[in-house]
């Protein structure tokens, strides 16, 4: 009996989502101490309100960016340029709308959205081209757009903050549909699409194959370059949508500040969610949980009343703890006595020997 219980606990314990979900739950529960009404969700004017809804609503752009980032990281790459794409996409959409005679015209807004997403796709193709065709390391290839992209965004807005007044555009980031914030629905749809395409078709497996060993997958007949290109385009598209959301929520585009550091938050979300930066297996569910952890952390800091700038310290602590827990070397060092049967993966064993002469 106890053995079976132990096995069940063991399965839950070893599930890759166990630690991220536990941390999210602990974070949310710790809010109860400061705000007892934290979990209450109420209906006001046909719209849902509540702290939990807020976390999901403000976390939606991060969820989107992190989704794309997960697939890029799964191929063994990384995309540093997402923050710049967020800024560019928002800037272009707002510029187009601000030039319209009637900012509330649905057609104008749709064209603006289309143009912004098109430009995002082009930027994604650029990244993918550099990585897949030219063969530049992903971190360097995307660094180019990360550095130049903010300049481009400011070039589009002419260094100004473009303010618009357009109710159809406001829907994307700040509106409601069926009582739920539209941004949550949008993030949900994109998540479901990504899960559908990667887990119900062979795409996910192919991406993992490319990430595990690009050369081996090429030799076994997978067109690895095509999938590498695809994930960068998808990542830029997600970032583009996130850019629309961010700019729509505040009805303005700021080339300098929009999406600042979102690439780092997205990478953190992916890592917290249990996807290894070295590529291979990925977990979209973990990423969503990871993104929500980061947003919940910021919200918690605000409700406790600590100066919001110090959020960074807590973020650093959470990242370090999560990474240490997930690090095989760390686990091996501290659980060797408890479970002597645990063998290190072969790749690690060489590394382990390093420390003896040191």
């Amino acid at each position: 009996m106890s053995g079976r219980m132990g096995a069940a606990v063991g399965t839950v314990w070893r599930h890759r989502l166990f630690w991220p979900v536990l941390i999210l739950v602990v974070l949310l529960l710790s809010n109860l101490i400061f705000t007892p009404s934290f979990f209450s969700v109420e209906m006001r004017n046909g719209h849902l309100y509540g702290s939990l809804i807020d976390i999901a609503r403000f976390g939606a752009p991060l969820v989107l960016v992190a989704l794309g980032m997960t697939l890029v990281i799964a191929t063994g790459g990384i995309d540093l340029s997402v923050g710049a794409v967020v800024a560019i996409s928002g800037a272009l959409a707002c510029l187009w709308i601000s030039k319209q005679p009637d900012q509330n015209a649905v057609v104008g807004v749709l064209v603006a959205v289309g143009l912004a997403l098109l430009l995002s796709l082009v930027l994604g193709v650029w990244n993918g081209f550099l990585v897949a065709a030219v063969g530049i390391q992903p971190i360097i290839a995307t660094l180019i757009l990360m550095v130049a992209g903010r300049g481009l965004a400011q070039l589009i807005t002419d260094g100004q903050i473009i303010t618009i007044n357009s109710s159809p555009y406001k829907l994307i980031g700040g509106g409601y549909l069926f009582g739920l914030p539209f941004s949550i629905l949008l993030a949900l749809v994109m998540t479901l699409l990504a899960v559908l395409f990667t887990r119900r078709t062979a795409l996910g497996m192919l991406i993992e194959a490319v990430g595990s060993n690009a050369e081996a997958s090429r030799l076994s007949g997978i067109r690895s370059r095509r999938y590498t290109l695809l994930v960068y385009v998808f990542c830029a598209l997600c970032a583009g949508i996130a850019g629309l959301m961010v700019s729509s929520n505040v009805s303005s585009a700021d080339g300098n500040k929009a999406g600042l550091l979102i690439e780092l938050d997205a990478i953190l979300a992916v890592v917290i969610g249990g996807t290894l930066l070295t590529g291979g297996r990925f977990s979209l569910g973990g990423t969503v949980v990871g993104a929500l952890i980061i947003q919940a952390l910021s919200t918690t800091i605000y409700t406790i009343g600590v100066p919001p700038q110090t959020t960074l310290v807590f973020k650093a602590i959470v990242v370090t703890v999560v990474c240490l827990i997930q690090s095989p070397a760390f686990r091996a060092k501290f659980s060797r006595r408890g479970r002597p049967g645990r063998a290190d993966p072969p790749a690690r064993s060489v590394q382990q020997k390093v420390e003896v002469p040191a």
Partner: protein
Amino acid sequence: MTALTTLGDQVTRGAGRLRRYVPVLATLALFLLMFGIGSYRYEGFLHGQVFLNLLIDNGFLLVVAIGMTFVLLSGGIDLSVGAVVALSTMIGASLVEQQNWPPLLAILVVLTLGTVFGLGMGCIIHYFEIQPFIVTLAGMFLARGLCYTISIDSISITDPVFTRMAQARVRFAGLFVSPSVLIALVVLAVAFVVLHYSRLGRTVYAIGGNEQSALLMGLPVAKTKITVYAISGFCSALGGVLLTFYMLSGYGQHALGMELDAIAAVVIGGALLTGGSGYVLGTLLGVLVLGVIQTIISFEGTLSSWWTRIVIGILLFVFIVLQRVIGVRERSALSRLSTRSVTEKPAPPRQEVRT
């Protein structure tokens, strides 16, 4: 026959060595070209002082980029440098202004803290095998966050030692530099000697070339990898001190995005981001190129500041593609000629991703 092979070897080796200098020479040519264009277009550009001003305005960036050179050469990355610079200005300012510490002691404490910070990150990277990218990212968040726990606002400095350092000018031949420039140049000289003439420096190159091989050769991989991050931490802290002299204030928003500038300077200076290849003098040229872009834009007057970022991005692209092309050629040249005489490191395999 033997003589012929030897001659062939020597030619290959000589060509290979020359080719390794191509990125640095390209940077030098680029710098001279940009400076030439500036001198042609703007009156008063071609002046020794304009060149020295590049060093005065970018001395702290040079010091930070030198630390970054060590890390990048070893095949790692350090995203925390900008935040450590900000934290150093903050700690220095608060110790001197709010706690009334003697300035020299405060500077010493700042330098020690920066080194310990880097050392700590190096230990986590090495002993727990977490990617440098993530560890130094956490370090960046921690350092920036700690700035705001000291103070959310900027702390301005009125201490006489700091103001004297800020206003002092070392004059020679009708020109002048600030003391910070001299400090930065000393750091550059020390880094040059360490990288090229010391055991530590050669080990850094060896680890960047191939960590497994370095390990099998019996090199102290663990110690060197940790030392590299400690050096970067020290350079960031020193960069922070120099920035304090320059700005005469401590602020959590100082040096935003400086890690990108430092990485860009090192890459434009010809170092490979994959490690194992590059020169610290190239880093100096990289910093000068970044400086000259800003100078041209300020001389032009009508161009807006964001063009700086766009031009840096374009330059990054050009240099990365240049290195890629050289890398491919070097590899094919090596495989065509005798493999016996291979002394240069072939370009790393493409699927290898270091983050």
